[in-house]
């Protein structure tokens, strides 16, 4: 495994950073929030990202994608993370698109993947419940068979882009007890299916998420995604890969708030001196720099290991997410602190990074959860 960007990746990174700088500054995300935008991201920009080839990076060529790897996609996600771009990579590409690619039938792939790659269709996965915390096996939503159809009932929380998705992939229990890994099945359900209600939720980071309630939602056998009762396995693998993508976004976020903080240390004066001359702040900045460097190595390694299917990929992903969670939060906390009062204001961007750090920390398992998983994998 070579922990260095290829020439193509260097180019991709440069394009992405230029794009973000001109087309997607943080002010864009702020404007979406201020306007309480009903979509929560920009469809125009999403189309542009599709035209640039980013949306299709992970999608196989047969369905209009580029069939590249996570190691390529993370480069783009890091750039977007720098300015907190809210476009639906997590929901549509890393979760929905990947589930379809890994487990979908030929018919399902034909029906959805080309539309996703072109930036026209939005897809999401409804897996989280009020009491499931970070465990994908804790599924209370039920699916029962009734004369050739499946009937689903239950509630899913904070479903990414749930209110705009054309379809949702829902995890539901078809057998077993509430925490069993076996007996979970995935269903691909169009959003306009009767009985499915989607309510927008407001979260601290202002990403578009929704409460999804399923009240006797009736779907045909053709909406099963993957094997009956075997949804946990597939979902775990896809969430693991999606975690790498999220970590890349977090890396971008922590790098940007750190850059902003450094910039402040070099411009703000107190006691007749730049505050960056104070050693108490210098040393904290230097330590933060090191932590971010280690986070970067972990993300690069996890992406490459996942692409290659290395045997230690799961533990590298837990490494990246545990470190990413801790370090993004640290960078955001230090960012607010070192900005003083201005860092506490809504007018300043530091708070956006803090809020996103907290949400990202609690998406796909927090640091403690991933350390515990690492310990289990290593028999500690």
């Amino acid at each position, binding site marked *: *495994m*070579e*922990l*260095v960007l290829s020439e193509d990746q260097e180019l991709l990174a440069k394009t992405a950073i230029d794009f973000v700088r001109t087309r997607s500054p943080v002010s864009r995300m702020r404007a979406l929030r201020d306007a309480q935008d009903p979509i929560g991201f920009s469809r125009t920009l999403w189309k542009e990202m599709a035209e640039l080839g980013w949306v299709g990076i992970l999608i196989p060529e047969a369905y209009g994608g580029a069939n590249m790897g996570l190691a390529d996609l993370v480069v783009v996600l890091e750039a977007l993370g720098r300015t907190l771009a809210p476009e639906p990579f997590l929901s549509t590409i890393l979760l929905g698109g990947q589930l379809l690619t890994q487990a979908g039938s030929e018919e399902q792939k034909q029906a959805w993947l080309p539309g996703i790659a072109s930036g026209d269709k939005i897809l999401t996965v409804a897996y989280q419940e009020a009491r499931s915390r970070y465990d994908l096996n804790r599924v209370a939503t039920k699916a029962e068979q009734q004369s050739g159809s499946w009937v689903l009932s239950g509630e899913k929380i904070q479903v990414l882009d749930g209110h705009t998705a054309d379809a949702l992939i829902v995890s539901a229990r078809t057998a077993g007890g509430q925490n069993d890994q076996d007996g979970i099945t995935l269903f691909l359900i169009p959003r306009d299916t009767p009985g499915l209600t989607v309510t927008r939720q407001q979260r601290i980071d202002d990403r578009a998420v929704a409460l999804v309630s399923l009240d006797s939602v009736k779907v045909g056998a053709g909406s099963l995604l993957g094997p009956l009762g075997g949804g946990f396995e597939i979902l775990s693998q896809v969430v693991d890969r999606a975690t790498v993508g999220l970590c890349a976004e977090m890396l971008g976020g922590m790098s940007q708030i750190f850059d902003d903080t*450094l910039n402040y*240390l*070099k411009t703000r004066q107190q006691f007749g001196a*730049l505050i*960056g*001359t104070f*050693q108490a702040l*210098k*040393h904290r*900045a*230097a*330590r933060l*720099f*090191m932590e971010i*460097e*280690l*986070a*970067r*190595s*972990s993300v*690069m*390694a996890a992406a490459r290991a996942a692409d290659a299917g290395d045997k230690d990929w799961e533990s590298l992903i*837990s*490494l990246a997410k*545990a*470190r990413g969670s801790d370090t993004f939060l640290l960078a955001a906390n230090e960012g607010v602190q070192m900005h003083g009062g201005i860092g506490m204001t809504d007018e300043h961007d530091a708070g956006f990074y803090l809020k996103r750090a907290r949400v990202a920390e609690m998406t796909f398992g927090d640091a403690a959860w991933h*350390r*515990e998983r*690492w*310990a*289990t994998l*290593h*028999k*500690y």
Partner: protein
Amino acid sequence: MADLEKFRAETRRWLSDNAPPSIKGTTLGLGEGNWGGRKATYPNPDMKAWLNVMAARGWTAPEWPAQYGGGGLSKAEAKVLRDEMAALKLPAPLVGFGLTMIGPTLLEYGTEDQKQEHLSKIIRGDIRWCQGYSEPGSGSDLASLQTRAVLQGDYYVINGQKIWTSYANYSDWMFMLVRTDPQAPKHEGITFILMDMASPGVETRPIKLISGSSPFCETFLTDVQVPAKNVVFKVNHGWTVAKALLNHERTMIASAFGSGTGRRQTIGDYARKYVDFEGERIADTTLRTRMTQYEMDALAFKLTSDRARDAAKAGLPPGSESSMFKIYGTELNQRRQELLGSIAGPQALGWEGSGFEEQELSQTRDWLRSRGNTIEGGTSEVQLNIIAKRVLGLPD
């Protein structure tokens, strides 16, 4: 790539043909390695034989130019050599400040005569070097050093005192910093010079550490005559050379302590001997969390070292990373040593004598010794200053 694979196959064959069987599987840590020099002793004569075959190929200094007796390998080939040595569990044939500090510095700043005179002796392990930087009044503020060198004809006459000189009593030569212009601003009156330790007027006195061993000395210099041709780079421009060497030193310390090379035992193995397990898991959840946190940080650090190495291989310019690796690597080693002691519990409290195993006693001494890791080679605080200034561009 094909060439590299061919090189790998040849290297593997050559190593297994030429490494004496008795040294296989004896991967040693830095402190225990073969430091060479006139005063070297070889309890296992095969270690000397191993040094000789490797030195004959220049593989004690794989990346140095062949014209001075080095291996002339590319970075990629040198990595193959390291990997193959690790796979066969072969110890480094030679370690020390010659290979890691003064050698690379002479390659950059030495005259042709100096390279000819010193490099091959380093490669063969004939001469052992020590570092005369620190003085009683000049540690972190190294540039305030007072040891005087006055030119008299073809010689400098040197008077002063060095301190914390690691292994001065076992070394044959010293590279050191002396003040040649006391009137100039402190960074501009310093000269970097090479001195034979056998010169009249050099006296070393070992100092005992908290760990009980005496790896360093006070070095007294009284009217020592050193040929003027032993000045490296230019007179009064020694600070430039000094900084370059410190960079090599930090890299050496970081790789020795942080990367986990040469480890015979994981902390997991150690825990299995001392603490209770419930099934496969460590029963004490607090200890488990500490161990996990350490292992994960160590892995992230290793990946970062790998990344820096891959970037160098790809021809990207080095950042000022050596300070980061120095801080993080040494702190990891300290955490590791403390953790090993916590795992062993009261068995980690022995100094010597009965009731303690050899391994426990040496681990305890290693823990004590590790406290010096964040001091030697420039303290962590000084490294943080360097990162703040050189990497982050924060104002003075």
